[in-house]
């Protein structure tokens, strides 16, 4: 089962290596990773999506927590949370196909961020399934390159009940 884990840690190269090394060293699975500076100075947040049964996930959470530089580990999977991914997609495009491609782009509320006589570069953000669908729809036109980020996620604070 897919899990999204948010790790809040001291931002140094050593901590980063330890966290990633933990996964490879113990045979845990990483589907995607994204990492960047957090709000506080010197701290960083990493969002990891991984798969495993309950026992494995508990192990992953505990082993992450054990790392001295890691301050907080939150398994977002069972709480309400928002998640987003971004993809940059370079598509083959001739003047004939350009209009069609633009149509697809509009459906996904994506943006064309670069244009050349032969190509279009498109930026798509959204949940993972939306990004996958966008790439799938653009595939028939001829994908030249795709650059994807990992998932970033934060807990939802207000779920509507008062």
């Amino acid at each position, binding site marked *: 089962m897919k899990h999204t884990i948010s790790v809040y*840690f*001291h931002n140094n190269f*050593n901590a980063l*290596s*330890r966290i990633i*090394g933990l996964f490879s*060293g113990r045979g845990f699975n990483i589907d995607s990773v994204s990492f960047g500076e957090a709000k506080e100075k010197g701290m960083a947040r990493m969002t990891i999506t991984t798969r495993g049964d309950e*026992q494995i996930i*508990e*192990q992953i959470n*505990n*082993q992450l*927590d*054990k790392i*001295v*530089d*890691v*301050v*907080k580990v939150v398994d977002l999977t069972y709480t309400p949370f928002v998640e987003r991914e971004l993809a940059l997609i370079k598509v083959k495009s001739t003047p004939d196909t350009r209009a069609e491609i633009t149509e697809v782009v509009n459906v996904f509320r994506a943006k064309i961020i670069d244009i050349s006589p032969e190509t279009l570069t498109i930026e798509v953000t959204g949940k993972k399934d939306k990004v996958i669908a966008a790439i799938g729809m653009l595939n028939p036109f001829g994908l030249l390159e795709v650059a994807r980020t990992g998932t970033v996620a934060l807990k939802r604070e207000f779920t509507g009940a008062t």
Partner: protein
Amino acid sequence: MKTAEIVVQKNGTMEPQPRRRTNLLHSVTGQRMTGSEILLKALGDEEVEVIFGYPGGVVLGLYDALHRKAPPFKHILIRHEQGGTHAADGYARATGRTGVVLVTSGPGATNTVTGIATAYMDSIPLVILTGQVPAGLIGNDAFQEADIVGITRPITKHSYLVKDVQDLEQAVHEAFYIAKTGRPGPVLLDLPKDMLFAKSRYEGQRKIRIPGYNPVGDGQRQRIAEAAALLNEAKRPLIYAGGGVILGGAASELTELALKSGIPVTTTLMGLGAFPGNTEQSLGMLGMHGTWYANMAVSECDVLLAIGARFDDRVTGRLDGFSPKSKKIHIDIDPSCVNKNVKVELPIVGHVKSILPELTKLARPLKISGWRQQIATWRSTHPLRYRMREDKIMPQFVLEKISEVTNGDAIVVTDVGQHQMWAAQYCTFNRPRSWLTSGGLGTMGYGFPAAMGAAIGCPDRDVICICGDGGFQMTTFELATAVEYKVPVKVLILNNGYLGMVRQWQELFYGGRYSHSELGSGNPDFVMLAQSYGAIGYRGEKPDDVMPVLKQAMRIKDRPVVMEFLVAQEENVYPMVPAGAALTEMVDTDQPVA
């Protein structure tokens, strides 16, 4: 957010205090000094008594500072960094203090890797100080450069690369704090040469604040009550105690609980000595080479109380066959240990020293005479036994004699292999920190240097090291260190001319094809080898030689002694749980019961 805000008192206690700030007015607070001097001062503040080290290029400045002003601790010059790391490890296990190693960059650092991994697997507190090339050269493939922080990342609890001399003092104090608290482990400090020459002010304050590291836990009251209830109802309870009891200094708390409740106790290899071995209540070791009765007890019990143990594969055998009839309580300081291999009904995370007394308060003396009778029956039908021979020394015989000759009071250290298992079976341990062995990693070559480190840490105790002819040859060179510092370690080589454990497996599972496991043709004359270093050497070839040689050796107090006993060549360790088998599928010796 979890935070540990600790102020360390000058007397060395490291328990977290509730927000009391003590300004330590150090004698040199505010003085400017080099990184080397700061490091030595900080080590002194940590009340380090011994460090094991070997000089080299990038630490010359540090060694010069050691020479110019004698530090408050002793520096032992070892002969190989691996030996030094094992020595610091043995020192730590015997004394309960943190072992300290000092080596140079590149090959000096990489030579410590095996020793660090050994300590990591057994949760031993070590601080490893490695020199490093100047910070500006890092990453340039400089002379004697190695990314030791990267190499040891998976085998250290934490590590530091201290590029700025202003961070050095704090890093040292944090390193010692992290090494010793929670589940102990090795911490590495990588120290670039230029940083050690740079100057900064000495603070003299040990304020530790590591958000995200909060190792203290007391277990939940509710859980402890539930555990007590479970134990008090049990008909066939068993205590399974591991190395964590000894590391947590909780042997007397465990003994109190066991004596009050009357629950039989079995220990892991690492837990030997946590409960006195010379009682009927003690079932000896369990697991792959554990006693028959301990393994049967584990398999038939209805409540298993695991304390400071991690359900390692050497103990459990095939997981689906491990203790199938029991409800399990697991007391451990490390939450990641819980439910890792074996599903546990009642985990209690916290410090064993504070949890056990709470449990003992609620425990009652149990009426389990039927269970005790059952265990006694197993013990009488399958005791530990071997065939005594007139013409050849039996290794088990030698080990039985050790307890006799030392009054059960010595520190026994082993290397790795058959002799290690026989020592665990046939030696009796009545107090903690009397038994040192590489359990988790199983490192050959560990025994002798670790024994040396233990002897240096505990000069008032006899230290006996049991090795095979294979393991001793891996770290023989530390004889030079032992002779130089007059360390009276007694080394006992059980020489069977083979890599014994490998030979046993080749005999039992590989059709007796002894592929490259015979050492006899290349072995040195161990007596001459010892003498060439200035140590004393004895040889025993017949069973009647054993006691006289042992007694003679115990009298020597000013240099190491090597006793070589030529033992029976094709002996096997029994009982044995074959790989992939359940504990109940033990194979015992076919030697009849006396």
